[in-house]
């Protein structure tokens, strides 16, 4: 194994940054949700890399739980987005600010 832990952590950090800026700068709720998934995947990659280089199983097992929770979260989140779209006919975040005042 010639690869170092740093290279995997670098890719993971890059993916997390991409997802983070997607959440900050995009206006479409669906794209924001996909960027959230990208951040979760960056965390998964870091966990597997740490687990592999530490020589333990625990990181790999945590990835199981993260994938399950992400699947449940996607199901609930998309149901909420569909309900919002039915009421507002829009998926842009500036139209969805009725809780603000």
């Amino acid at each position, binding site marked *: 194994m010639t690869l170092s832990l740093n290279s995997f952590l670098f890719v993971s950090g890059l993916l997390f940054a991409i997802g983070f*800026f997607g959440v900050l700068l995009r206006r*479409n709720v669906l*794209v924001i949700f*996909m960027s959230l998934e990208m951040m979760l995947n960056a965390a998964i990659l870091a966990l597997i890399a740490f687990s592999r280089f530490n020589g333990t*199983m625990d990181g790999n097992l945590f990835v199981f739980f993260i994938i*399950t929770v992400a699947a449940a979260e996607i199901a609930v989140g998309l*149901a909420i987005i*569909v309900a919002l*779209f039915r009421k507002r006919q829009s998926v842009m975040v500036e139209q969805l600010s009725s809780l603000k005042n």
Partner: protein
Amino acid sequence: MDVLFIIFAVLTVVPALLMVVSRNPVNGAMFMIISFVGMAALFVLLEAFLLAILQVLVYAGAIMVLFLFIIMLLDMDEVEKIKPGTVTSIASGISLALIIVGVAVLLGSDGLAGQSVAHLAAAPDFPSADNPMGLALSAKAYGFGLFTKYMLPFQLTGVLLLVSMIGVIIISKKRETSQGQEQS
């Protein structure tokens, strides 16, 4: 192996970037699928074969198909105006600076890879003769971990799936008004 790592890292990062900047959400979802497959290849490089299969099946398969289904169901025709406000711009600038500093620190040091084995062996989870949780590649090892050390989280995950299923059904079902007529 380094060449493979660079190929798969590019295959993961570039579609992720394209996903964030693409105007059409359908194109974004397609790029996301490519990115997830690239990440599964990175998992194979890390010798987590079962998780690579799961990544393709659950993320690139189930989750992104659900996303595409919802995107096409909603059928939005609004054009997104990318005009971030001042607060968003300031927050983005600060976080970009933080990320650049973090990556510089990471690349400047030899990082965690330089730690000695003796230091790692002091960690409580380091595999030894009486700790069966050392790194193994078979699905049997995953099952052993899930049903011994992580039994309670495993059960809670089952409850979570049930709760989310009930929640989705309640959110998406049509509500009856007091007059008895259906309201969407």
